[in-house]
């Protein structure tokens, strides 16, 4: 992405909106890695006075393009930003990440319709297709399938990938950039808690912090050092 931690507001930048705002800790980790703030600050997550709010806050943390947390809204805001970039002749692309449960919100489809209507080829949405939401499996709570056919019917370019395969991810973004005249959806098949044996594909871990022992095991299983 064309972004610069030293100049988070630069005019021609690409933008990323975490429509599934509850995944804020992952975004914060990526931002720290990219140099937006010191890694030590990650430990202030969700604490009183921290810039790292429970859900991303653009007024507190430079580099956050949009405050999110209420599902369905981020993608619609991304549509607005993509329209503005077209209007201003800016090259910046707009990316947004949605949950597969999130796409149950009607607003997502209102936004999807608008994105195709305005031919927003500078917009790329990614659906984190992990099959789970808080109350369980998508198909038990409220079926969302077929996701690909739905977006295609709404006029989108749809690319399906293994969301844990980096070359596939990179290639999908290249193909999205090359696609003209319509927005792209990257449907990324994933596993919630990927790589951590006791978390994988388990809805119960959606919003729960691991205990110290569990955290240690998780980091070790992911190949990190505790």
């Amino acid at each position: 992405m064309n972004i610069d931690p030293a100049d988070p507001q630069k005019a021609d930048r690409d933008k990323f909106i975490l429509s599934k705002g509850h995944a804020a800790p992952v975004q914060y980790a990526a931002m720290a890695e990219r140099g937006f703030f010191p890694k030590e600050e990650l430990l202030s997550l969700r604490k009183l006075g921290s810039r790292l709010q429970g859900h991303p806050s653009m007024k507190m943390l430079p580099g956050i393009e949009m405050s999110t947390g209420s599902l369905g809204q981020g993608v619609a805001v991304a549509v607005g930003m993509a329209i503005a970039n077209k209007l201003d002749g800016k090259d910046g692309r707009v990316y947004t990440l949605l949950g597969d449960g999130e796409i149950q919100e009607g607003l997502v489809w209102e936004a999807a319709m608008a994105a195709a209507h305005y031919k927003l080829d500078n917009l790329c949405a990614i659906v984190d297709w992990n099959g789970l939401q808080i109350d369980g499996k998508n198909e038990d709570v409220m079926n969302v399938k077929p996701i690909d056919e739905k977006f295609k019917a709404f006029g989108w370019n749809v690319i399906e990938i293994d969301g844990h395969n980096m070359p596939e991810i990179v290639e999908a973004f290249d193909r999205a950039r090359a696609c003209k005249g319509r927005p792209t959806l990257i449907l990324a098949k994933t596993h919630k808690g990927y790589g951590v044996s006791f978390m994988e594909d388990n809805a119960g871990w959606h919003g729960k912090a691991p205990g110290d022992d569990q955290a240690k095991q998780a980091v070790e299983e992911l190949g990190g050092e505790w």
Partner: protein
Amino acid sequence: MAEKMATRQAYGKFLKELAVTNKNAVVMDADLSGSTMTKEFKAVAPERFFNAGIAEQNLYAMAAGLAHSGKVVFASTFAMFAAGRAFEIIRNSIAYTKANVKVCATHAGLTVGEDGASHQAIEDLALMRSIPGMVVVNPADGASAMALLKAVAEMNGPAYVRLGRAAVEPIYEDDVQVEIGKGIVAKEGKDATIIATGIMVGEAMKAADMLAKEGLDVRVIDMHTIKPLDEEIIIKAAEETGAIVTAEEHTVIGGLGSAVAEVVAQNCPVKMKIVGVQDTFGESGKPGELLAKYGLTAEDLCAAVKALK
């Protein structure tokens, strides 16, 4: 005395009973059944539980449809997404049509805690109270939540029930009698009155104890029903104690304080202080830290009372 519990836990207990006692009851949720506690109903009567998925507008519009087909519907999600996201549907499809839907909204106010401003509904009482004919209740503890939920279930028509995430100290015995629209004098007093709602009733009781040590005899009223508002109890308090402080875990704009001020200003003007969240959004933090930072503690109530005396 009853045990410490969150009002949403009382809701879970209530629903578990309702599943058995009222075969006409339907319960709905929007992917938060473990948090709102509607899972308790689902466990007993899965055939009468409907998950809308993450689709709050559809949740409340479907609820209206079920209600107009003869069901009594308890439909839950977080207060932000009920009163907030689905406001206009609640207004037009539920309240305007007098649908028998109980909007039982949990995780209201700042005490949602770490999730932060996007999840802290501090405008819901104002929104819901502004809708014609809407019954709006905000229980102070588990026992009174149970009693109010039973009362709400028995009345026909729309209601908004505000429930909290965090456990609160009990104020009442388990068998407390609570009537919709009738405030409770939780403590007598003659020097000033604190009219509180929801979790602020507990803080008001603490404040009254603290003020008693300083020689001030303060009345505490639990205004569990914001609408219809108990005007009589307010006028009496104004006349007998001459000073009123209101307390709510909600913005100072449009909630309990405004409702009380409307009555006081038009019937019996006395000095008032409105304690609540000033015109600002919340943030992430522990519930207790947030109540302290945003001026919602017993100490803040003491200062407000003293400022009037």
